[in-house]
């Protein structure tokens, strides 16, 4: 029986049992151990899916230490032979259902005037290398940027899907590949980011003009946050407030931190965005909607990591 270090004050406050004083964190929504998967989806998923069908990009991130429930939140329990139809299915399967629901309603309303095409892809970023989870033989793919396509992964498989069930199948296949890669190729899933992307294209004929709109929904299962200290896991820049980097190899980071504090565009910082940040760039600014689900384990043993996750989430709230 573990002791707890967290208390939830519905609907949007979580309190950490810190010494000398407990710390309060306020978020858009806080879910406790009794919150259902359905409720989580309602809080996070619905609005984003609606805006995606409306033509805007969106991203949902799951962040937290390994074992805090990211995968459960995003996918659901995985023991039932990867059946994504049961009660405890997570955000991603519910997103499929809701999305195709909305699409068929739109289709009904507008008839032949509009046509929807949905594609999905599933990739993994490990050690700053990109692997296609829909291709069992995948060896690192290149992240490119060109004028026509924007930022894209060269050679990534995109599967057309017409229903929630088909999307589930793609997800399952990819997930199996991820587990296989984890054991046979040592691509430990706690150290990699998984990105499932749904691209929704709508072709609409209005007054003799063909209107093509394209929007993307990215569902990201981030690498375990405790792994941020590993030099290989980049993607979410978490700056530890209290630590000194012992090795001179991090001198660049120290200098960059000085420049970051300075304002605006009057400087150029020569560093490369992590693959994840670059890949999601289109989906993280402007008209796009972003949600971060921070998963925390309430047990006292996980105090340090939980504190770290909550602090990160609070900072993320302040970033525009």
């Amino acid at each position, binding site marked *: 029986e573990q002791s707890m270090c967290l208390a939830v004050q519905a609907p949007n406050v979580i309190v950490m049992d810190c010494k000398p004083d407990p710390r309060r964190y306020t978020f858009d929504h806080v879910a406790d151990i009794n919150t259902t998967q359905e409720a989580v989806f309602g809080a996070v998923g619905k609005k984003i899916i609606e805006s995606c069908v*409306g033509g805007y990009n969106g991203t949902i991130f799951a962040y937290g230490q390994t074992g805090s429930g990211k995968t459960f939140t995003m996918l659901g329990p995985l023991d039932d032979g990867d059946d994504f139809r049961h009660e405890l299915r997570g955000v991603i399967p519910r997103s499929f259902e809701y999305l195709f629901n909305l699409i068929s309603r739109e289709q009904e309303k507008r008839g032949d005037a509009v046509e929807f095409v949905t594609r999905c892809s599933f990739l993994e970023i490990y050690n700053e290398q990109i692997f296609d989870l829909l291709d069992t033989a995948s060896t690192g793919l290149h992240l490119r*940027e060109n*004028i026509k396509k*924007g930022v894209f992964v060269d050679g990534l498989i995109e599967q057309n899907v017409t229903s929630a069930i088909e999307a589930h199948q793609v997800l399952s296949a990819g997930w199996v590949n991820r587990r296989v890669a984890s054991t046979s190729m040592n691509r430990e899933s706690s150290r990699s980011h998984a990105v499932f992307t749904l691209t929704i294209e709508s072709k609409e004929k209005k007054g003799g003009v063909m209107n093509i709109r394209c929007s993307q929904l990215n569902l990201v299962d981030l690498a375990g946050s405790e792994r941020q200290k590993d030099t290989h896991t980049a993607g979410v820049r978490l700056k530890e407030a209290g630590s*000194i980097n012992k090795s*001179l190899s991090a001198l660049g980071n*120290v200098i960059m931190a000085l420049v970051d504090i300075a304002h605006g565009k009057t400087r150029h910082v*020569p560093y490369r965005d992590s693959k994840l940040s670059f890949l999601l760039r289109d989906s993280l600014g*402007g008209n796009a909607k972003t949600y971060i689900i921070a998963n925390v384990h309430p047990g006292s043993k996980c105090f340090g990591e939980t504190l770290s996750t909550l602090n990160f989430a609070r900072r993320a709230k302040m970033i525009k």
Partner: protein
Amino acid sequence: MAAMYLQNQGFEEYASARRLSEEESRQDPETEPYKSKYKARELLLQLAEALQGFQDESQAEENIELTLQLAELWFHLGVNFSETEEVPTGEQYFSRCAELMQGHKMDQRCVNTCLNCLNQLGILWVSRSEPEKALKILQEAEDIYKMYMHNVGQPPLLLHELLSPEQTGSPKSRQAEFEKTHTLTLYYLAQTYPKLGDNEKSAAYCHLTLSRQLQSGHFQPIDWATNCATLSQYYVTRDNFTQGRHCLASASSVLSQVPEPSDETEDGENESAREKLERRKADISRCWLKYCLVLLQESRQALMDDIGELDRAKQTDLAKGGAVAGSKGSHNDDKQEKSEDPEKAEGADGPGCHHGDEKSQLRFESLELTALEDQVTDKKVTDFDQARAVFLVGQKYVNAAKEFYVLDGHVTDFVEITQDWSQLFRALSFFEQDFERRCKMHKRRADMLQSLLSELNQQHYLLVCRQIMYEIAEIFSEMLDLKVAIAEAADERPKVHAVKKINSLAQQSISHYQMFLDSLRKADKEMPKTFSEDTLRPALVANFCVGRLYSKFLSSDPQVKLQNMSKSLDHYQFVVDYCTSHPDIAELVKSELEICTEMSQLLPIQMEKIRLTLS
């Protein structure tokens, strides 16, 4: 007695402990990661106990050696406990070590250990969010190094030598390790200062760290150059152009010495060594570009402030080229310090109290930089010729950067470079007295941005397209104002082709603001009822500008005038209506709203007057 013990047993125990800790621990299983380190700990504790036993029995001189050996053991135990996540205990051992070394800090046998110990304590206190404590400790380490080098100088023993049967170090290896330890002290200081809010000191210590890397030869040139160029950007944002230029020149110099890589294999970033070098060179070009741009912008700002103050004295000072100190004050303060050595502004106890010649502290002495530094000034410019010289250097670096950052493949980077280039022209135009020539510069800007815009896919580059549309609209507006001023200066009614030009510019400005506004529309082509936070002000200001632009059309036809006034009114009204339905945001567009409100009342009256003349 102790010596014999060590010879027969002690040294071996220590060697075993070291082997366990450094080598065997790597093979420890995941389930028992500290197995070897725990074993090492036992040996160290045993050894320490034995030595403590001997301490009371020994002679004075032998006693000192024993004391130092114990101190070093405490240090290694401190490391051991820290590495096995028992930090509080580790701290106790480090403290014991430090205590024991009191009065022996200048001893060649232990000064290296002493510094290592203080470094560890510094790191520890920062991790406990007590940077003030850490600072004191690290400063002590810095002082001990300086004092030792000044007063003693003999290369101190390496770590482990005191506890080994033979002296394994040579003067060279000992000095090298001592220098490394000191460099780490400086590096940790660089990291501690920001936590105390002192970025300036941090930058100075980063500079020092870079300098020592250069001296020691232990550095990777591409990384070094990149770090140095990044540091230059810190100085550029602080208006310290002298320091910024020096870092840039140094970065360029070091990078130019890197030989052409032959290996084409790609690394983890899917980039070959050659590509990586090319990219870094391009990045440094972009840093130079920012330098030139900010220098021109700051020069412009200084002159504008002066024009506001009409202070002749200050203008002459500027012309003489007052040095810009890197202090925290505004640039107005800097003008007073014109004759002071810039580095003196860093503070008396900064790294500049080491040698007699303070200036050398913040320069990389070993590099030949004259040509690179002489290519551009580090003083703010005050006239067109000076400005143009800086502009040309900036433009050179634009082209250099674009050799690697081509549009297709590096869209984002290419766009930023082009935007900088546009700003470079804009800054230069301020110094051009002749309006026609000024107008031509703006035309260059409009051309390069329009051509870029036509290439970009709005779907993927929405944010950037909006920025460019807005900037183009502003440029045409600027050109319009210039043409009007030229016509007015001619003191006669504008000729036909001038009228055409003015109207055309107004139209182009309007159409680009409109493009920008259209990009904000929702999927159903309607304007959003509420703008998002980042697009709110630009959207309202754009409407305001369009309203204003419609009044700039020159026409003798009253019908045309009415149409333009009507469109003008629509846009002013939009702003008024939006602010009415969103009263909380009115502050953001206060001055524009005032004018819009006024015009929305005036225009209908004026329009009515014209209609009356027509009927």
